[in-house]
């Protein structure tokens, strides 16, 4: 297997892009990434998207976006794994280069959610749950996360307020990210006043519906040497799965796929949790942030909220998470999120995060979670010397 490098990154700000189409957002991110990498035409494009077929009545995003960017004839396809679409698309790109079949690949995550009203979006997002055993019973994504959170609080004897530091940290970090949706810190008082959406999940426990596109350019060592940017080496790219429905899991408050995915990534990289300087985790809901930290070995089961309370997830802490806002502060354009996580990680490892910089970040990890933990992709990156 050959080494694979992240050569360039690009993104649109995350937000409500009513005046921009799906293809325009994707093209902006891709052009920015290609310019950043200092390369010309990639050999293939992997598009990550979850909802375009339902919300935008559009399939074949590979062809749509490749032709819109002006890459006529390019090999292109769409990859879908709900909210893990981005991570899985990146893995497809990494594999293409590691195998030696391609030398230069573009990956673009794009999602457009805010053109539709709440109910169709809620219904479309629920397709990531089990249609027969969850959605048919009226389950929504928020409700499924509420079921996990309620049980976690019950088993570990943890109060709802213990999750607040995850939201406060993400919002505080988003202030320094010019591409984040919510660039403002929130106080504990604000958190306490948040309306409950699906108890115990409140507004600040959940990430916002958003539009956005993020892109990566991946290349081989040979291409990396000719590129303008200091390349970042992919040390691990690992995917694992679990049952789509919560009820079929042996322990619904332990993310088995996240644990497997993280372990496979550590094995590939020859590293452990103690080697990771910054962790872009998937805080679609604050309970997912806690479970991701536990699954990746940063806290024992039931101890993640204590890690957060101790300030260890902050920029100066032992394991900074959501360093540029995470899903909570940056926004969660679902199919694009896995790519945004890697863009944020790359920004940290290059030392380009400005006031949001994690000091001394040399090795970083991103974990992208689909559904309530059915598909989980973990990547580890390093700033190559």
């Amino acid at each position, binding site marked *: 297997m050959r080494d694979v490098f992240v050569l360039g990154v690009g993104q649109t700000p995350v937000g409500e892009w009513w005046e921009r189409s799906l293809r325009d957002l994707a093209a902006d991110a891709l052009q920015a990434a290609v310019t950043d990498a200092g390369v010309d035409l990639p050999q293939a494009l992997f598009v990550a998207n979850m909802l375009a077929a339902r919300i935008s009545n559009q399939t074949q995003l590979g062809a749509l976006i490749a032709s819109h960017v002006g890459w006529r004839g390019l090999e292109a396809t769409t990859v879908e794994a709900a909210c893990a679409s981005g991570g899985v698309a990146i893995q497809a790109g990494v594999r293409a280069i590691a195998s030696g079949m391609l030398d230069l690949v573009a990956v673009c995550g794009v999602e457009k959610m805010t053109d539709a009203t709440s*109910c169709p979006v809620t219904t479309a997002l629920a397709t990531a749950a089990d249609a027969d055993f969850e959605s048919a019973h009226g389950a929504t994504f928020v409700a499924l996360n509420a079921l996990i959170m309620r049980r976690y609080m019950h088993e570990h004897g943890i109060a709802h307020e213990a999750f607040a530091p995850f939201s406060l940290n993400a919002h505080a970090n988003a202030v320094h990210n010019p591409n984040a949706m919510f660039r403002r810190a929130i106080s504990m008082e604000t958190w306490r006043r948040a309306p409950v959406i699906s108890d115990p999940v409140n507004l600040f426990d959940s990430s916002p519906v958003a539009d956005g596109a993020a892109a990566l350019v991946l290349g081989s060592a040979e291409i990396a040497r000719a590129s303008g940017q200091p390349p970042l080496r992919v040390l691990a790219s690992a995917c694992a799965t679990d049952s789509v429905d*919560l009820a079929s899991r042996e322990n619904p408050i332990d993310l088995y796929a996240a644990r497997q995915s993280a372990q496979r990534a550590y094995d590939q990289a020859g590293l452990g949790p103690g080697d990771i300087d910054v962790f872009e985790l998937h805080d679609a809901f604050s309970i997912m942030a806690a479970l991701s930290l536990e699954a990746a070995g940063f806290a024992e089961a039931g101890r993640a909220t204590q890690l957060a309370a101790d300030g260890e997830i902050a920029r100066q802490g032992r394991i900074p998470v959501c360093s540029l806002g995470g899903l909570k502060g940056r926004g969660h354009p679902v199919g694009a999120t896995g790519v945004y996580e890697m863009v944020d990680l790359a920004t940290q490892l290059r030392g380009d995060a400005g006031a949001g910089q994690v000091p001394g970040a040399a090795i970083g990890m991103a974990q992208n979670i689909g559904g309530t933990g059915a598909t989980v992709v973990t990547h580890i990156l390093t700033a190559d010397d």
Partner: protein
Amino acid sequence: MIPDSAQDAERVRFAGTGEIYSLTLLTSPPAGFEDQAPYSLALVRLDEGTLVTAQLTDLSEAPQIGDRVEMVTRRLYSDGDSGAIIYGYKFRPLLRQQ
């Protein structure tokens, strides 16, 4: 209960009783469920050990984790004005004497 292999699988009829493993009150429903909101969704641990996702129904007071419940057949949702009415299982507080 997930069998180790397909050969180990056998057909089992559940008694339909169990207890609430986790629950939430859902106020923003998906399409097809608008007329039912707000409703309680739960994970129910059946007495045989299996977990099931289902709505709680016939509630007279706020349900809690650990409450005993039993399965009943109810309307789950309707597929529009002219579509099929889908029936399935929900759980209500246990009425039967054990």
